[in-house]
């Protein structure tokens, strides 16, 4: 009997050890709240989710995919082959061991690539500690397995060496299996289970699922709202936290982290996973929260997570802009924003522990349905001269224009005026809700005030359902997202269109004839709630191109664009950092050399215009278009005039 004949039994032993390890986590997951999971569909879709959706994200970092495909592929293949080897007839075949050796060789190649990512100096976003040491057991296992199997395929010419390598392989293999509960190898099992039981299965296969899920506010009994302890998360959320590979892509994309605010999505997810298990088994070896606030570190399945005594400081929670850059980048498909909002919901709904400056908008929402406490009847005041049609007065219109909070803001009013004038020029029949338009509730929901959001949502849905229109047009991506994606849960399904898409339609249909604006290079800043949340990145660019402007792209654009810092209530929570997010983003815009930053969101406009010093001009796409249309009108008039004598 050759040493290699023990390899299949090693795999069996590894499976047993791993099963024991992961069972401890399974018990933890089961203590989470129940969640409806379609296991059958999830398991059926698992290979596709893993090989296509996950790979697609992993592949954005080529060195990662080049490393992971052979390592994981070789490991899985070798293990699978070796399990087959439990059949004695097969184990006798030298060709079989040749195949096993090949699989181990592939894995070895992958490990070599991984070593090159981490040594001599690892990428700054990667975690160290056990993750840094992982290539050692992996390499020993792969190389040992290869040598053992390879010698077996040659007829075991060097039995002493075979036994030595088998022992090494066994040690490394059992070590890896032992990491399945707390160590890095947890990601393999938890990750696979997470993909099958993902809370947002709609995300896979090219779909999109970005809306926050409502919670039952009138749940009977004294059940708490939101998540206070790990046990308050749904079980498949706890599973998701365990799937984290600490690759740090979320951290690299996080605007709050970049601005030195005390948030790292990676650290937060690892904290949440550790909190469920009662604390860190090994010390966290990634980047700390920037300017980390001291915390007590108390953890447990039923211990509060967010508190100065717990694992996560409240400032970490309130630094998030809900831009979803982390979710977009996560190869394990973890939903960071959902977790943050769940935690915020508890803080806001049960403890009222919102940052000081966020109390006022929430109080205004409760009192006046508007975050700045403005009278709803004043919403159309800025356009008193434009004679907007109001639905309540019996207007019927093709398009319902949702003005949003920008109507109360001087800067936002300029954009809205340009949009309204352009609509008039295109002969669009539209009307507004006037004083019946309440705030959409975006800010309240992102700050965790689900009660206020649901009240506003129900009221707005009731108002909107009274009227007949075919589409809702809005210049605010936050309102767009809420109306389009979040109101359906409250019985209001509307066809919502963003003004950039609508104006692009108008230009394409020839109803607006913009002249070419020349001279200035433009860079377009994608609003998170339009680009990432709704995948609309083409229309605004098409519109800018139609204006004949030179368009330059920032390093981060489209679905991977960087946040302006204006979402998720970040401007009102106002967590101090080293610098401000809009300053960073404006720096990126300046780097393109563009003289104009085109924006498509009132929040982005406000944040980017707040940047002081020498900077490109901030213009909404609607303003640029209206300028071009006016220029077009003048050109036409001039052409007519020039043509007259002839």
């Amino acid at each position, binding site marked *: 009997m050759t040493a290699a004949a023990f390899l299949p039994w090693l795999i069996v032993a590894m499976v047993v050890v791993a099963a024991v390890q992961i069972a401890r986590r399974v018990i933890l997951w089961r203590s989470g709240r129940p969640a409806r999971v379609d296991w059958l569909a999830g398991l059926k879709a698992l290979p596709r989710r893993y090989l296509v959706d996950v790979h697609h994200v992993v592949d954005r970092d080529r060195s990662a995919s080049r490393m992971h495909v052979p390592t994981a592929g070789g490991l899985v293949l070798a293990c699978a082959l070796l399990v087959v080897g439990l059949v004695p007839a097969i184990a006798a075949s030298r060709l079989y061991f040749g195949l096993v050796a090949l699989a181990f060789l592939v894995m070895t190649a992958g490990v070599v690539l991984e070593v090159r990512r981490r040594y001599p100096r690892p990428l700054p976003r990667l975690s160290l500690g056990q993750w840094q040491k992982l290539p050692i057991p992996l390499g020993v296992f792969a190389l040992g397995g290869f040598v053992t199997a390879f010698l077996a395929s040659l007829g075991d010419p060097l039995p002493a060496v075979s036994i030595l390598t088998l022992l090494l392989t066994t040690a490394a293999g059992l070590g890896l299996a032992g990491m399945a509960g707390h160590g890095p190898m947890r990601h393999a099992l938890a990750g696979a289970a997470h993909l099958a039981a993902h809370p947002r299965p709609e995300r896979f296969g090219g779909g999109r699922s970005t809306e926050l899920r409502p919670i039952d506010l009138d749940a009977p009994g004294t059940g708490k709202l939101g998540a206070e302890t790990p046990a308050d998360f749904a079980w498949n959320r706890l599973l998701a936290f365990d799937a984290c590979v600490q690759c740090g892509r979320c951290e690299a994309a996080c605007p709050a982290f970049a601005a030195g605010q005390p948030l790292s999505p990676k650290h937060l997810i690892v904290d949440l996973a550790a909190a469920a298990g009662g604390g860190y088994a090994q010390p966290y070896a990634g980047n700390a929260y920037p300017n980390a606030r001291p915390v007590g570190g108390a953890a447990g399945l039923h211990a509060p997570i967010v508190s100065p005594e717990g694992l996560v400081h409240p400032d970490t929670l309130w630094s998030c802009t809900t831009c979803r850059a982390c979710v977009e980048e996560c190869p394990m498909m973890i939903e960071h924003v959902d977790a943050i909002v769940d935690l915020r919901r508890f803080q*806001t709904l049960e403890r009222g522990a919102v940052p000081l400056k966020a109390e006022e908008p929430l109080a205004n929402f*409760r*009192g*006046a349905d508007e975050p700045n406490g403005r009278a*709803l009847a004043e919403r159309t005041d800025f356009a008193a001269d434009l004679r907007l049609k109001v639905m309540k007065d019996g207007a019927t219109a093709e398009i319902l224009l949702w003005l949003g909070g920008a109507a109360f803001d001087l800067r936002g009013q300029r954009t809205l005026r340009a949009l309204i004038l352009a609509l008039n020029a295109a002969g669009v029949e539209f009307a507004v809700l006037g004083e019946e338009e309440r705030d959409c509730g975006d800010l309240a929901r992102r700050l965790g005030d689900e009660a*206020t959001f649901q009240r506003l949502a129900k009221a707005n849905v009731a108002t909107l359902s009274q009227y007949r229109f075919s589409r809702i047009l809005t210049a605010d991506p936050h309102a767009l997202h809420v109306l389009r994606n979040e109101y359906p849960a409250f019985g209001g399904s509307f066809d919502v269109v963003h003004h950039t898409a609508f104006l692009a339609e108008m230009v394409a249909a020839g109803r607006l004839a913009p002249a070419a604006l020349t001279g200035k290079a433009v860079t377009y800043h994608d609003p998170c709630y339009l680009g990432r949340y709704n995948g609309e990145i083409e229309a605004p660019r098409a519109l800018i191109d139609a204006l004949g402007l030179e368009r330059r792209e920032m390093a981060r654009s489209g679905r991977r664009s960087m946040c302006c810092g204006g979402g998720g209530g970040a401007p009102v929570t106002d967590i101090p950092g080293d610098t401000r997010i809009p300053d960073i983003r404006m720096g990126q815009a300046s780097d393109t050399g563009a003289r104009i930053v085109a924006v498509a969101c009132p929040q982005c406009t406000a944040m980017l215009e707040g940047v002081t010093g020498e900077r490109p001009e901030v213009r909404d796409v609607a303003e640029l278009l209206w300028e071009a249309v006016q220029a077009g009108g003048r050109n036409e008039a001039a052409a007519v005039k020039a043509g007259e004598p002839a």
Partner: protein
Amino acid sequence: MRTLVLLSDARHPVSGRPHLSRLETQAIGLAASLDPAARGLHAGSGEDAVRAGLGHGLAGLDVIETTGEADPLPALVGFLADALGGADAPELILAGRRGEGGFETGLVPYLVAERLGLPIVADAVAIRAGEMPGTLVVDQAMAKGARRRVTVRLPAVVTVHPLSPLPRPFAYGPMRRGRIRRHSPAAEQADLPAVAKMAGHGTVAGRAEDTGGTTVGPVDVVPADERPHRARPKLMRTSGTAAGGANLHVGPDPTEAARLILDYLEANGIRRYGKAPE
């Protein structure tokens, strides 16, 4: 210290919807810091406005359901007299310096205090139990940041000043769980000695509708006198008593400038600031 907060039926200044008065929210904050089981008391036709008090730290709410136009004072006095005679008698009754939503005279706490024979202290910014049992130390807000520290015998009525600490922020969950006890107006007020002493005070009672927003009561206020509010500009503060004309000095010697500044301050009495009033 068993504490009770009087709550009025305020209206939001922008939307006109029922909402909890800001000052009463601060009173609730003070109450909750003294008594985790502090309760709110409201007499009126609905609890829409005051329910939010449960979300700001009240453990419970007592609502005396009076009809829309009724004067809440008898209901409040009746309820409080019962409570003061009961086992868990409130020791401290807090209120805003004036209720909102009604005629807003600010008389209710004074009338309640007088009818129940309790002392009243106004404009509290901080409250704590006194060293002697049965006493209360109240810091009253005074002009220019000064405070008057008053020790008063309990039970007492205390009204709260806008400079008192920020209230605990609103939380929906506790409001949802909070218990509201509804009562019908006490019919046996006539038995109360304190009220009996005040017989003949019907005209004052009629004016004391702060705690019930929809009440119309005062004898001299006929509905015809009530009309939509007209915003009137306040006086400008800029002119003041400054002597006009020659108060611009271009490029004076720094010592001369300093003298001018101090003289100006002394002429306007500003440098007395910070000294304890004699």
